[in-house]
């Protein structure tokens, strides 16, 4: 319980309680939101946003406008100071969502792509055009240089491009020829962004110092003074201590969130290890101090961090700091996205401890990635083992090479249930259905790939990545936005969504129509077209619903799921975009199963029109009478896309198993078994069915209930009722 004492456990308890209050306030002010908690807090009610670079329609685009608005936000950003916290600041605004007409599913984009829209709509494609972030920064760049060093780097590059402009022929660094006018505008804008961040850090320092002056309690006052000192120290210089490094990362995270919601983290144990070791050796940091600082960092924002796993040379990176980070996450009773990389050479104690914390806390944290299939897959995409090992779990479903890669991860989706619907509607004989599906899927990938090219051709003018450019290798040096030639590698992600709906539909047709002849194809088509209405519709629906499902093991639908994955691989990984960019396939629906479902009529698996599609690579609830987790694990392992991106397993473990004295071993075996069969990522909830049902009836009853919705975790009471229902259906039916 929170007491007035100023020790770490009491401070953690008060910080956690405050976070729950902030979540309640956000819920009241912003309504339910089916997405990540993000760690943002509400600005003071009196605060007015007056962005300087907005046109009459409420829009802006281009580096200068983004920089001007961002700098204004940073310079005027309210300074959140909590005497219990070791970190100064919370973020409050998302600039990318302040453009008029913003929608989560469709970004504002200053360039017309209406020539692509009819086909995008036909196949219910989420094209990702104008989407931002969704690739990983290399924090090492910022930790090495500090804001002052980054500023010097930007100014040095600008000078180079200015000289080149005056005297053409002086070569800019980097292979691709840069548009020097754009380079100058971009680098000017980067400078503005950095100056904005530096101003905010100074403000935070001053605010902490102010607060210290009015604090009577000596311990609290000392903490606030140390916070102020830390902030002043990192305005220009690179961080030198563990606390400065933690504050530096938090500042970057909050600024990058404010810019455009970016939430990618990094290999946190390795990033912080030098500071930890130095401070420990110097006797200025205890393990308790370090754990509390990491606790504050994780509380500040649920960025995606990885711990453990191999380094580039294949040596295990687990260190005492990895454990410390894990324990800090274990003490955090809030949304947290920590991933442990599971591999052959790992420290098994870290894995085991992660599972124990997951079972004890029941907050969906940590989660686990499978090194073997990820490395083999990325190598299949044409990269070395060294690079493949450095491609880490720093997003919802996604892996990225920190600072090297531009990906549009998790924002480009093809709703395969919609593709199937189009193919099914024009098919007269069941033997033609697969051929028609492949043809339409190919067309869907075509238009998606052209959309990616369109994004890559224009996004740098629409919304440059002013924050993530700074922590990428290339954009500053080359004077090119990361979305437009600045990155080292382009591996554009395309995810399919709705696998189980389509596999079960193909399976039901094969079983009931082709093999058993219990039903004619024409009768099935008529029933599907009529949304299974009437007595005959209900009879046909029962018949197709009784067919073997994807996930049951050895069914026609299981074989179709594998076949659909082969089609995904062939059509996505087997080609590039028209402009020559590499494509990497995945299966993942994010939290969009309701939206995708609304676009699709009834399907031959018995799903009614408008009902949600299946989640990620998971089978549909009820896929087996016993709901066997091993069966689910094997099925999802069998549909892995195989080129370095994931098809995550969303696993719900019943509290009954969690109470088994051997629960940790059994859950470890499930995870390791899945990875041995080729799995890539496991997101786990430990489910107390009774509690979740009660929370669904009365969300205010459990304000601290956190569930892993998908790649991200969220407070259950922050989700919309329809979305809560979906989570309840999945959790309760699958966990039994």
């Amino acid at each position: 319980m929170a007491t007035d004492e100023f020790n770490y456990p009491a401070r953690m308890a008060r910080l956690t309680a405050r976070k729950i209050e902030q979540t309640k306030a956000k819920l009241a002010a912003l309504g339910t939101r089916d997405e990540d908690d993000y760690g943002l807090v509400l600005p003071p009610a009196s605060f007015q946003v007056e962005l300087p670079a907005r046109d009459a329609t409420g829009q802006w685009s281009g580096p200068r406008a983004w920089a001007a608005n961002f700098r204004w936000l940073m310079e005027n950003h309210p300074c959140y100071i909590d005497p219990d916290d070791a970190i100064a600041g919370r973020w409050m605004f998302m600039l990318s969502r302040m453009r008029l007409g913003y929608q989560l599913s469709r970004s504002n984009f200053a360039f017309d792509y209406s020539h692509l829209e009819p086909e995008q709509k036909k196949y219910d494609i989420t094209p990702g055009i104008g989407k931002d972030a969704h690739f990983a920064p290399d924090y090492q760049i910022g930790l090495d240089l500090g804001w002052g060093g980054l500023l010097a780097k930007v100014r040095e590059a600008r000078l180079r491009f200015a000289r080149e402009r005056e005297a053409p022929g002086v070569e800019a660094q980097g292979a691709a020829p840069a548009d020097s006018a754009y380079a100058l505008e971009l680098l000017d804008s980067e400078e503005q962004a950095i100056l904005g961040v530096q101003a905010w850090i100074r403000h935070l320092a001053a605010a902490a110092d102010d607060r210290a002056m009015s604090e009577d309690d000596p311990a609290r006052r000392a903490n606030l003074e140390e916070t102020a000192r830390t902030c002043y120290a990192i305005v220009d210089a690179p961080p030198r201590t563990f606390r400065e490094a933690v504050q530096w990362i938090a500042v970057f995270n909050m600024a990058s969130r404010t810019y455009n919601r970016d939430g990618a983290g990094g290999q946190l144990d390795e990033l912080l290890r030098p500071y930890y070791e130095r401070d420990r050796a110097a006797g200025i940091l205890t393990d308790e101090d370090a754990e509390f600082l990491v606790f504050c960092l994780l509380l500040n924002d649920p960025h995606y961090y990885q711990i453990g796993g191999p380094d580039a040379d294949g040596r295990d990176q687990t260190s005492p700091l990895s454990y410390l980070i894990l324990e800090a996450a274990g003490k955090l009773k809030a949304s947290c996205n920590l991933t442990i990389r599971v591999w052959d050479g790992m420290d098994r104690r870290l894995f085991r401890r992660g599972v124990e914390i997951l079972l004890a806390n029941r907050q969906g944290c940590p989660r686990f990635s499978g090194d073997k299939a990820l490395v083999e897959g990325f190598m299949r995409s044409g990269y070395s083992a060294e690079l493949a090992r450095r491609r880490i779990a720093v997003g919802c479903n996604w892996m990225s090479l920190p600072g090297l890669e531009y990906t549009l991860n998790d924002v480009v989706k093809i709703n395969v249930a919609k593709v199937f619907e189009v193919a099914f509607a024009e098919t007269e004989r069941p033997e033609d259905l697969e051929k028609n599906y492949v043809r339409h899927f190919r067309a869907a990938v075509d238009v998606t790939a052209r959309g990616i090219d369109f994004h890559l051709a224009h996004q740098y003018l629409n919304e440059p990545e002013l924050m993530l450019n700074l922590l990428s290798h290339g954009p500053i040096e080359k004077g090119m936005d990361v979305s437009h030639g600045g990155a080292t590698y382009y591996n554009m992600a395309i995810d399919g969504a709705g696998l189980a709906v389509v596999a079960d539909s193909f399976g039901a047709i094969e079983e009931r129509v082709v093999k058993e002849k219990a039903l004619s194809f024409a009768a099935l088509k008529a029933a599907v077209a009529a949304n299974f209405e009437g007595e005959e519709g209900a009879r046909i629906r029962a018949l197709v619903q009784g067919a073997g499902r994807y996930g049951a093991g050895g069914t026609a639908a299981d074989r179709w799921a594998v076949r659909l994955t082969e089609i995904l691989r062939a059509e996505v990984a087997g080609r590039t975009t028209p402009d020559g960019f590499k494509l990497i396939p995945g299966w993942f629906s994010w939290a969009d199963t309701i939206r995708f479902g609304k676009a699709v009529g009834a399907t031959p698996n018995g799903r009614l029109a408008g009902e949600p599609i299946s989640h990620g690579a998971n089978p549909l609830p009820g896929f087996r009478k016993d709901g066997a987790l091993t069966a689910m694990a094997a099925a999802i392992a069998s549909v892995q896309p195989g080129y370095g991106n994931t098809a995550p397993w969303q696993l719900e473990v019943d509290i009954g198993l969690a109470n088994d004295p051997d629960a940790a071993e059994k859950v470890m075996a499930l995870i390791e078994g899945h990875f041995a069969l080729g799995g890539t990522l496991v997101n786990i909830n430990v489910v107390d069915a009774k509690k979740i049902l009660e929370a669904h009836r009365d969300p205010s009853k459990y304000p601290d209930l956190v569930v892993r919705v998908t790649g991200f975790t969220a407070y259950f009471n922050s989700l919309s009722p329809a979305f809560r229902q979906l989570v309840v259906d999945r959790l309760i039916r699958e966990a039994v």
Partner: protein
Amino acid sequence: MDGMAERGVVFDIKRGVAKDGPGLRTSVFLKGCPLRCRWCHNPESQEFEPERAVTTGELCGMETTVGTVMEEVRRDKVFYAASGGGLTITGGEPLAQPAFTTALAAAALAEGIGVAIDTSGFAPWSVFEAVLAAAPLPAAKQGSGTASAAPLADLLFLYDLKCMDDARHKEFTGVSNARILDNLRRLDKVGARIWIRCPVVPGLNDSDTDLAAIRAFVAPLRHVERVDWLPYHPLGLEKYATFGKTAPSGLPSPQRT
């Protein structure tokens, strides 16, 4: 005869089972039981023939082969290996279909899959011998001639003990416990791995005397690895009506647990 072609009546196969034996398991439920335990929560397992639920018309139990069952059992090999799990043959009473159970156990063991046999112990000793013959001898025993130096690897008996008092055993289960207790002593003597499981039913066999008698019987046995006291749960009671049977009376009601 090819063991894979051996036929038996199975009423359910559950994968990913995290109880009834170590690790993650596949449980194969064989139909038919010679006992009629008053607390039985699987009334659909009692008759040897497939039967239909009177309420839903759903068929319970079907004749199948060891080969067909093994196809399902093999699917989770990677999880058995990762967890130390395997196949559980349960029921009903698996030893009441001796040829099928022996062939299924032999097939799994031959493929390196550990087997647990969940039994009431009520079967002729010859049936136990047949099942034991399917299990590989542990390395320690081969050629050394020192019987029971190490337990038989990969084969585990989940062995029920219900009541030491024979008259009340008959009253509760319909059969004497003499054969059951004798088989358990012999199993222990040959070095089989044994987990004792005792269903504890309030008001029937949960007195201190009853529990002490079980402990006293088990104490001298050398290969009993653990004793689990299984709390009674009334979940199966409604299933009696489903199969047109009369639920036993005198049991604790659901509210009590």
